[in-house]
């Protein structure tokens, strides 16, 4: 038990005074509830006094009591418990009232709850239950509530909806969905052969192969069993992907094709960057690194179709074939490989650059030839990086929405099935089952990664670069790899170029007459929607960056109960496939007090919680460069944490914050899967509009919008690079002294 602190400097006015006063103001002036979706800033009919008189008076009374308690110089400990008791009791009452009357919360109720939570935070600080100052304690409470409400709660709802239909627990929906041909089917009734037998035959062959390979190497029993099982599973996936149908089989098969290929290309590019003599290679690669960020969804897919589809320029015009072969796994795989190779490259880049050349030189002095050095030294050192890149692309491939929806043809995919179940078949429970499957799949993969790699850093050798230089690649290999990169670059240039070209001609590939008509058509609704999108993206980028900054600061610099839970939960949204998060928001925020769907706010929130993990990571990296003694010095010079943040940490992290906002904005502009369910007539977003144009066949208009977006986003990123270069040249470095 903590004793009360005597006299002199213990009995102070409380920081809870301001939120306590604001509580009354908010309740008095702001509309407490909404009759419908839109939020209103002023409406006398809707304030608490007119809607729930007794609740309003309860809130006024508690505001008065809290204000007086905070203003008086009382013993901190006793007052702290009083603040906790009153604020938590009253906020539970407010919530219970909202829930029991099925009212939609308005700004007034929101303000009341936020103020009460702030008071709660101050109380937790004053009692020492959270051993930090009031600002930190309040931040912990608020961040915890936000993350619970907007990440954990929606995901929980998806899992719940998959087993609770119309309020009753049932596994029927689950069984129905999982046994439907859309999910997985092996047997094709219209062929004489038995596909099931073939698939299980391939699975057995895989298992035997896995067993045989390890048996020849005389591996341990566990490893033997493991590879046998893995061989069987992989064989089944390949078999089911080739001979079967259904979202589950197709998505896994696709991931199995895409992930190794992208990692292979990514590795080639990363090594080429480090060990190639030609300067143009590095120049091309620096563009490659930016591309995936600024490319709106669908662009690659529909450009690919223009070139290689049934009516494609190359397939149809040059070779004269009219085939639908491209639609399906092939097309999606090619599109994904093009889209995700830069991601694999960026992931592997860190590991490759972290290699210590001295290790390879040591191997060379021990008479290893270059191939032996590569297979015995370089590859093993890169293993964690390769695994990370592999798993990341598996997750990206499973979660991808835009390529399958355009190029999927008659095949179904998990991420698109979530969408089709909800918007096509109007079955939220079926959508939830697909969402739950996808979520469990991704979390299993992440779990495997954790178990396999532990928490080890993906950069194999960190710290100071070792002395020595990497030997350059042999000439023939360098030329071959440069050829690969050149071909890749040509393909990508061709694809982007065709979008650009297509926006200026009448009908792409048919009528090459120059026209500005697409831009004129686009500017009709397009500009307005683009402006709205920019607005949503900007607000969400700023909120995501600031919230991400606060959470990163809390979990790295403060100690409190539940710290690792806060960190894990905030990172969870990063792993959650976009369509799952989207469907979760639709289901979770469509009823009850938390009605948010159809508003501007829900779009912002969806993007905030999607982009926040990236901000958290970048700020964490920045904070780890700043000596913790700087915070402590500031604290001991009598700065409360909020002052330390404002005067020391924020100024030192301005480059990170700025790039965080820009990147979050860019990602927000190009987001599709998480917001496609959430747009509403008044809140249409650019990517969704583009999809509808593509579906209607307005390809030129879509190309015009893509061109505008690519150029705009590219401009922003180049501006950021220029700015951060200037900043790092003139400004102070990030390192603390000493």
């Amino acid at each position, binding site marked *: 038990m*903590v*004793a009360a*602190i*005597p*006299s*002199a*400097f*213990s009995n102070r006015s409380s920081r809870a005074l301001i939120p306590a006063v604001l509580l009354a103001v908010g309740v008095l002036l702001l509309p407490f509830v909404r009759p419908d979706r839109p939020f209103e800033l002023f409406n006398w009919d809707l304030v608490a006094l007119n809607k729930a008189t007794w609740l309003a008076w309860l809130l006024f009374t508690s505001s008065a009591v809290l204000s007086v308690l905070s203003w008086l110089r009382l013993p*901190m*400990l006793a007052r702290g418990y009083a603040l906790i008791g009153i604020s938590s009791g009253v906020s539970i009452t407010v919530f219970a009232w909202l829930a029991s009357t099925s009212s939609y919360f308005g700004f007034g109720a929101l303000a009341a709850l936020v103020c009460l939570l702030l008071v709660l935070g101050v109380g937790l600080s004053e009692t*020492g239950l959270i*051993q*930090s*100052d009031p600002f930190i304690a309040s931040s912990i409470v608020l961040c915890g509530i936000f993350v619970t409400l907007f990440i954990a709660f929606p995901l929980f709802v998806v899992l719940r909806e998959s087993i609770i239909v119309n309020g009753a627990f049932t596994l029927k929906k689950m069984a129905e969905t999982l046994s439907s041909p859309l999910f997985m089917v092996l047997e094709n009734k219209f062929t004489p052969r038995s596909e099931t037998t073939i698939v299980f035959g391939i699975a057995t062959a895989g298992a035997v192969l896995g067993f045989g390979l390890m048996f020849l190497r005389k591996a341990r029993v566990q490893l033997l069993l493991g590879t046998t099982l893995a061989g069987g599973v992989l064989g089944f996936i390949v078999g089911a992907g080739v001979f079967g149908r259904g979202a589950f089989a197709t998505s896994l098969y696709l991931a199995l094709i895409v992930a190794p290929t992208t990692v292979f290309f990514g590795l080639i590019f990363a090594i080429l960057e480090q060990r190639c003599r030609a300067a143009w290679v590095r120049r091309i690669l620096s563009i490659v690194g930016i591309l995936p960020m600024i490319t709106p969804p669908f662009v690659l897919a529909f450009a690919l179709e223009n070139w290689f589809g049934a009516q494609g320029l190359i397939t149809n015009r040059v070779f004269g074939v009219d085939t639908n072969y491209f639609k399906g796994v092939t097309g999606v795989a090619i599109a994904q490989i093009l889209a995700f190779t830069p991601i694999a490259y960026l992931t592997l880049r860190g590991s490759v650059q972290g290699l210590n050349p001295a290790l390879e030189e040591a191997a060379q002095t021990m008479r290893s030839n270059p191939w032996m050095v590569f297979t015995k030294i370089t590859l093993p050192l890169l293993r964690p990086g390769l695994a990370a890149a592999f798993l990341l692309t598996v997750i990206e491939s499973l979660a991808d929405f835009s390529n399958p929806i355009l190029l999927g043809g008659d095949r179904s995919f998990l991420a698109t099935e979530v969408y089709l179940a909800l918007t096509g078949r109007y079955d939220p429970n079926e959508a939830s089952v697909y969402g739950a499957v996808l979520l469990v799949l991704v979390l299993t993969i992440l779990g495997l990664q954790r178990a396999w790699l532990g928490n080890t850093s993906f950069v194999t050798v960190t710290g100071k670069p070792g002395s020595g230089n990497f030997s350059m690649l042999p000439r023939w290999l360098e030329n071959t790899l440069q050829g690969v990169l050149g071909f890749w670059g040509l393909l990508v240039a061709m694809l982007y170029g065709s979008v650009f070209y297509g926006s200026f001609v009448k009908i792409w590939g048919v009528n090459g007459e120059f026209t500005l008509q697409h831009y004129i058509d686009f500017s009709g609704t397009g500009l307005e929607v683009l402006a709205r999108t920019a607005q949503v993206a900007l607000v969400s980028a700023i909120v995501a960056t600031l919230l991400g900054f606060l959470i990163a600061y809390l979990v790295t610099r403060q100690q409190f109960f539940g710290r690792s839970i806060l960190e894990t939960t905030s990172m969870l949204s990063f792993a959650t496939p976009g369509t799952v998060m989207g469907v979760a928001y639709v289901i979770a925020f469509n009823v009850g007090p938390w009605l948010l769907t159809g508003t501007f706010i829900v779009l912002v929130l969806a993007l905030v919680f999607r982009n926040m993990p990236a901000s958290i990571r970048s700020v964490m990296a920045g904070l780890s460069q700043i*000596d913790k*003694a*700087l915070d*402590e*010095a*500031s*604290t*001991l*010079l*009598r*700065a*409360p*944490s909020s*002052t330390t943040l404002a*005067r*020391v940490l924020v*100024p*030192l992290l301005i480059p990170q914050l700025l790039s965080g906002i820009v990147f979050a904005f860019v990602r927000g502009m190009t987001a599709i899967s998480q917001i496609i369910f959430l747009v509403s007539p008044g809140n249409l977003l650019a990517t969704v509009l583009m999809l509808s144009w593509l579906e209607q066949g307005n390809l030129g208009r879509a190309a015009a919008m893509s061109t505008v977006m690519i150029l705009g986003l590219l401009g922003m990123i180049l501006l950021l690079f220029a700015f951060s270069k200037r900043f790092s040249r003139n*400004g*102070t*470095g*990030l*390192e*603390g*002294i*000493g």
Partner: protein
Amino acid sequence: MNQTAVPVRLENIVKRFGAVTAVETVSLELPAGKLVTLLGPSGCGKTTILRMVAGLERPTEGKIFFGSDDVTQLPAYLRDVTMMFQSYALFPHMNVFENIAYGLRVTKRPNDEIRERVAGVVAQVGLQNLEQRAVQALSGGQQQRVALARSLIMQPRVLLFDEPLSNLDAKLRKRVREEIRELQQKLGITSLYVTHDQEEAMAISDLVVVMKSGIIEQKGAPRELYQAPVTRFVADFIGRANFLSGTYNGSSATVGNYSFAFAQPIQHGNVTVMVRPESLRVAKDGIGLEGKMHSVAFLGTTTEYTVDTAAGQLEGVMAGDAPLLAKVGEPVRVQFANEGVYLIQA
């Protein structure tokens, strides 16, 4: 002496980090206006105690008082304590003036007062004309002074030092530590200093507290610790020492064949005899511990030598210019001087 200086009292402080106990029931009083040093190897809990006094850590059990105020639960930013960090922790985005003025700015003092007080403290630590420099542009010693000025300007009730000299080279370290001592005595601020360097501790402190594995081994004035260490750990940590097993009968002590008159209030029977290297006396013959000269090294100011005896190898030191009585390999007799010998309970 400073009239406002307060004593700091730690009562039965325990600090656990999970299953690890960093500090085990420590009670300690820092007299008002004095400089007390916590001395010990790394991991002995000295820095944890310092951080608890600062408020950067809260004790698991026990209480901390500044004067009569219980500050145990008081957050760090309200404690009126400043600290000099090992890394200096200067704010890299502020110049010298802004670094020093930071605490006054944060507490919203008027600009005139800030300018006046910064000028005063800058003169005190000798940083005149450097106020507008970027802190990165300063030498290590100057950065050190900025850190000191930044701490002093707040006129703290307690001043803390967390190994502040370990990033300086040996010569500068000696000078800065003298300056710190001088300023601390002049200003009379109650101070707690943490170091693992025993010479630094001896030079700077009114009171030295030797710690080991989270508990206090011994506390006392530097001279007292050197002359009368109560445990072998303290004797070994503070200065160098030879340890010999022997017996004590109330009026004389015996090691091997050598008995010498000695009086110390300690239980009779088996004891460990501690002898400082400078207290060995070597003779060709006569009374003394039988031995053989093993090595001699002339170091300029001093000469160091070792003697092999039946009780073990002894290390000795004598003035550099003293005549050498025996060559390496020759038999010698070793006697102990009156000073620098102390009995420790075996």
